[in-house]
Structure formats: structure tokens, C-alpha cells
């Protein structure tokens, strides 16, 4: 395996060739906020929180989808990036209906964590209070679209790991929403295997176990990575 070296915030790191900029930041011990990315799933670069500055390029690059190359110099926490990240988190909060006080994921929510991470204590942009629905037609789980941030982790885990492709995205722009099956009630989708992987990966309280009430949702976002390693590399947790 050949190795490349690059610098992250001035610190030199060595990572395997073909690795992403995200892996470079991890090697440097730098933490950048992530919402759509989840280890084990194909990166999509949608939440724009992991954008980094690359010296010599006038475009910001998403760390999750950009391949690292030899000699790159990247910066992850410039003033401008901090500013943009905070604004992006404000936009996330303003576009949905995120009411932590009675959310299943309160205290265990990645959106909440990211807000703390970027120092967002209020949104300067007015809340949109969109009209969204809750689909509780599935016997075990439910999806509350009010809390959805459209990270598409559920779409990807169901397609890539479970192979059922129950989820997809419907409509466009601010009307985008996650659809089950052919835009049916979740409980009527025969392709659903009731595996619950979408619940595991959902960063917020949008997809949850029906038995969980306020602040009771547990996170298992490491599962796709474990499953992927098990399949691709035949590495099991009990080995």
C-alpha cells in the first residue's frame, strides 16, 4: 500500500493513497462536524459542514468526498469556515421543526451536537415552521418528517447495506422529503425488512423506535461501518 503525505492545519500526516480528506483530518486529530457522512456509507457531500480550504484552490472542498493527494495543504478551521458552518447549522434548524424538549433524540442527537460544536445558540434566520407529517404506519418504527434534515443516511443504508432500497427522496428544493416505497405509508412497503438500520443511522429523532419516548433514543451509528468491514474485509467484532 502506498502512502501519501499532506498537511492539515500545518501538521503533516501520512495516510494510505486513495483515502479522503476526512481521513486526513482524523489522522491529524482534527475534528470537523459531519451530518450526512457516516462511515460505512457512500459519501455524498450534501450537508456541507465538512468543507475545508485547500491551498491553491479557490473552491471549498467537502472532506468526505474529496480524495487526498500528495502534498496537499488543507485548513479546517479558518474564520470563514467557522462562519459558514455556523450559518449552515442555523439553516438546518430554521428549515425544519426541531423542538428538542420533547424529541426522542434529545441529548443523543447529532444535530444538537453539531450545534454545540459550531457554537450555534440561536438562528439569525427566521424559522420556517413547515407543514410536515408523521408516518407511524410501520408496526415497529415511525418517521417524523419534522425532524428530518435530509442527510439521506437512511436512503443509503437501506440501499447499500440492507439492499432493500425502501427509502428515497421525493420532490425538490425545500419540498424535498424522504419517501418510503413508491411514496407510500411505510407500513405498506413490502420491501421493508424491519431491520431497523435506518433507525440506527438517523442522526436526529426523525426515524425512531415506537417504544422510545422523549430523550430515550439510543444511537448506533457505528453499525454500517461494522457491517461494511465484516462484509468487505471479513473482519468481525468478536475476532
Amino acid at each position, binding site marked *: 500500500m502506498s502512502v501519501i503525505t499532506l498537511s492539515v492545519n500545518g501538521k503533516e500526516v501520512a495516510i494510505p493513497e486513495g483515502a479522503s480528506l476526512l481521513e486526513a483530518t482524523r489522522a491529524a486529530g482534527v475534528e470537523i462536524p459531519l451530518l450526512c457522512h457516516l462511515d460505512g456509507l457512500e459519501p455524498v457531500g*450534501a450537508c*456541507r459542514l465538512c*468543507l475545508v480550504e485547500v491551498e491553491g484552490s479557490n473552491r471549498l472542498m467537502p472532506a468526505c468526498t474529496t480524495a487526498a493527494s500528495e502534498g496537499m495543504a488543507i485548513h479546517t478551521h479558518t474564520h470563514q469556515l467557522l462562519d459558514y458552518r455556523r*450559518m*449552515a447549522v442555523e439553516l438546518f434548524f430554521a*428549515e425544519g421543526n426541531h423542538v428538542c424538549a420533547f424529541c426522542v433524540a434529545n441529548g443523543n442527537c447529532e444535530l444538537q451536537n453539531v450545534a454545540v460544536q459550531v457554537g450555534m445558540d440561536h438562528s439569525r434566520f427566521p424559522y420556517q415552521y413547515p407543514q410536515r407529517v408523521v408516518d407511524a404506519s410501520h408496526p415497529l418504527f415511525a418517521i417524523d418528517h419534522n425532524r428530518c434534515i435530509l442527510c439521506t443516511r437512511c436512503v443509503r443504508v437501506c440501499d447499500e447495506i440492507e439492499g432493500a432500497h425502501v427509502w428515497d427522496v421525493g420532490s425538490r428544493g425545500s419540498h424535498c422529503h424522504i419517501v418510503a416505497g413508491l411514496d407510500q405509508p411505510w407500513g405498506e412497503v413490502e420491501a421493508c425488512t424491519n431491520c431497523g438500520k435506518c433507525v440506527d443511522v438517523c442522526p436526529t429523532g426523525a426515524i425512531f423506535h415506537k417504544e422510545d419516548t422523549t430523550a430515550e433514543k439510543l444511537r448506533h451509528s457505528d453499525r454500517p461501518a461494522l457491517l461494511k468491514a465484516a462484509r468487505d474485509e471479513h473482519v468481525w467484532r468478536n475476532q
Partner: protein
Amino acid sequence: MSSSGSTTPARQLRCCGASGCRSAGSEELQAALEAARDAAGHTAQELAIKPVGCLRLCGRGPLVACDGPGGTTLYGAVPPTEAGALIEAARNDDHGSGDNGNDILQASRLDAQLPFFALQSSVVLEGCGQVDPESIDDAIAFGTYSQLRRCLHELTPEEVREQVKLSGLRGRGGGGYPTGLKWDTVALQPPGPRYVVCNADEGDPGAFMDRSVLESDPHRLLEGLAIAAYAVGADRGYVYVRAEYPLAVERLRKALQQARRAGLLGNGIDGTSFALTIEVRVGAGAYVCGEETALLQSIQGQRGMPRPRPPYPAQSGLWGAPTLINNVETIAAVPVILREGGDWYAAMGTAGSKGTKVFALSGAVTNTGLVEVPMGTTLRSVVEVIGGGVPDGTPIKAVQTGGPSGGCIPAELLDTPVDYESLMELGSMMGSGGMVVMGETTSMPEVARHFMRFSVNESCGKCVPCRAGTVQLAQLLDRFVERRASPADMAKLDALCRMVKATSLCGLGQSAPNPVLSTLRYFRHEYEAACRQPALCEQP
């Protein structure tokens, strides 16, 4: 079909049948002309009536060009009731030169010396208005497909790419990426399947250049695409056309069918081993599918959403294979470049932007239509000399170029030459070529809001800056249009525009703030005046 193309009759009437003139009643006019000719007892050999594509001055449609021994005379807005008079005029070569007292065609006759016609140089549009778009025989008689044949028999793919590189041609879809370099990148990928794609998903408001090429000269596009496929080693191609262009889709499909029958597409083209299959794919109403990665997704039958680049389609495009994707105008320029040579093309234009560019001129302008001028022509000569300025003679306030991705250029900067870099410096962009002229009465915050609402509706929703940011921007602009903004809104507008521009995933989001940023730059006083306490908004 009135013309087989083999012998051009001494006198003919060319009737524009592109969308603009069709909506002005060109079909009725053509039928009336045919009836009037028959009634007058003339044969088609004496006086041919030929359906053609765009004759440029769309705002005066339906347009008819009369060719006779004395040259060509153009008529515009001819009512079908005057068909008889027009037939007589064409038959007798009497186009108002004599002092004919009862010259009822006087009002319809257009002056060929108008700067609108005289200052144009036809390269991409050379066949528009000349050939019958539904007849491959006519296209071949005009010279179409001769360059494809020449490439296949006489030139290697490297030599073809060399000419394109020499020409300095850059992508006409708006990005301005050097075409030859893109072709090389695709051609030099490791062996394996390759695709060529023509992006005909022209969606900018005020842009209708590509539609005119598709409707007027579809065979030229197919020839260009086949040459491109030969140059990069592709054997499959797609033309992705938006569904809102039904006539373009119809003519393109017809052209494909004719080309296949004529052996100019398919296996063993023109007796060589070169094979190419081209398919038409029709869009489903999403503006974002004009973005190349979203377009490729759509061709593959998936939801049209952009993905981060790199990898660029030239490395990994359709089904992961190297894919060449070029805009209609870029591809339509290729046959001429090969015919006349790359040097010839590069002699036109400026140092960085070679050749000609087609613009669709609309808005508050006297001559609405299609304009092809060399790069580097000033905006002023396009909108004031060729376009004739604002119809009521009042001054121009601004020119919007590049649609929702571009910006408004104020009147005092009209002497800027039109090329990629100059427009970019002004905070606008070439875009695909839509040019909307605005008069004194236009409110700039309203213009900005109009385009922002467009972006709100057309955002695919994948990334948050574009999905949620454009919504917030449109609401902020509402406050300015309704004159209830505050100084804090000004700061917010500025900050959010910069964030959306810098962090959006694809070109749509990255350029969505341009109409706001450019109007803030040149017409800041209008935003300030819209604040409840304008004095507070003024910068120190």
C-alpha cells in the same frame, strides 16, 4: 417537402418555422403563401416555398425571406391576408424599389442594412434559416455531414482534436472550459467504453439559442456530435433535450431517423469501421438537470441530482465510463471549425475567448431575437446598435446576462467586451447566452427576487445552502421589495449570499446569489432606499 436541395430555384420564399415564428402564425402564413402561389398559377419550380429555421429577428415574426435574382429581401409580421401581394412581389422581384403607391407590404419589409443583420457573423447559425430542418437532403446539399465524412476518411482522431484545440473553442454552456482539452481528457482515458452527450437542457430564462439550433439545423448538431464521438473514441451518444422544447425534440428525432437511414449513424458509417448510436433523452422539467452530473444521473434513469466533482464526467461519467459532455452551441461550432480550420476560428474573438457567441436578446429592446457576434463585441453594440435599445427611446438601465446564474451589468459598463473573463469580473457570467435588457422602470431588488424565486423552485434540495439558503434569501429580498427591510437585513443578505455562493454543491447553488450580489454592487442605493430608515443603511 418543397425542396430536394439538388437545384435551387431562381426564386424562393424561405418561411421561418421555428418556435417564435410558429407562435406568431408562420404555419398559417406558409399555407396561405402556397395557396396564393397556386392561385396565381406559379409552379414550385418557378417560385419555391421552403420551410426553414430561425431567421433571427424573432420579435417581428412570422418572418419570410424572399430570394430572387436581385438578392434577398426579408419580410416580418406578414399577415396571411397579404400572402397574394407577397407572392406577386417575389414573382416580379419588386420589393418596393419602384415608387409603387399602393405598396401594402411596405410595413412588413425589413431593411437588410439594419445593424441587426449587418453586424452579425454567422458561424454556428450559418444553416439556420437556410436549410429545411426536416430534410436531410437539403442539409447535405448545404454541406452538412461533409466534415464528418472528411474526418472519417482523411483525419485521425488526434488530428480532429488538434483542430479543435487550435480553434480555442470554449464551452458555450456557460462554464467556458476549453473544449479541446476536454476532448483530450476523454480520449486519453484508459481503453474501454466511452460516451458523448450533448447538453440541450437549455433552461435559463431568456435563453433560446440552443432551441433555435435544434429546431433550425438539427443535422449540423448530429454531425458535430458524430465528429466528437470519432475524436474521443465513443460509440454511443445521447442528446438530452428539455421536454419544454417539443418542436426541437420532434425535429431532432426526425433528423436522427433520417441520418440512420442515410447510413450517417449506426454501424459502418460511410463505409468506415466507425459506429455510433445516438439517442434522444427528454428531460422531465428540472432546471438542475442542465448541470452535467445531474444530467448524467437523469440519463441513467436516476433522480437528477448533482454530485461533487471531481471526479469529472471526463473521467467517470455515464455508468462510470469516461463521458464527453458539451453544450449544443459548442458542438454545432465543430463542423465549421473543421471546414475552415482551427486557425480561422481562432482569428475571431479576443485573446482568451475565441470565435463567435450566439445571444438571445430579449426584454426592453427593439429587436428581439437571435444574435451571433464575434467574442469581444461590446455589450453596447449588442444591445444598443444591434438590439436597437429600449423601444421608447429611453436609456437602458442594465443588461442581465447568464440568467439566474448571472448578474445585472449597469448601463455605465456597457462598453465592456463580451467575453468570459470580462463578464466574470463584473460579477456576471457569460452563461449560455441569454441577454435581457432592462429599462429605467425596472426595480433591481425585484429583479433579484425574481431570479432568487426561480432558484428556490429549481433547487434539487440535496445540499443545505441551496435548499434552505435560497428560501431565506428570497424572504430577505421580499423585505426589500416590500420596503420593510432594516440595516440588519442588508448585512444578513450580504453574508448569506456569500455563504450560499461559497458552500453550495453545484453550479446552481454557487451562482444563485449572483443576481443579488451584482445588483447590490451596482444598485446598492435601491436596496438602501428600500430600508425603513435608509440613512442607517448607507455605508460610512
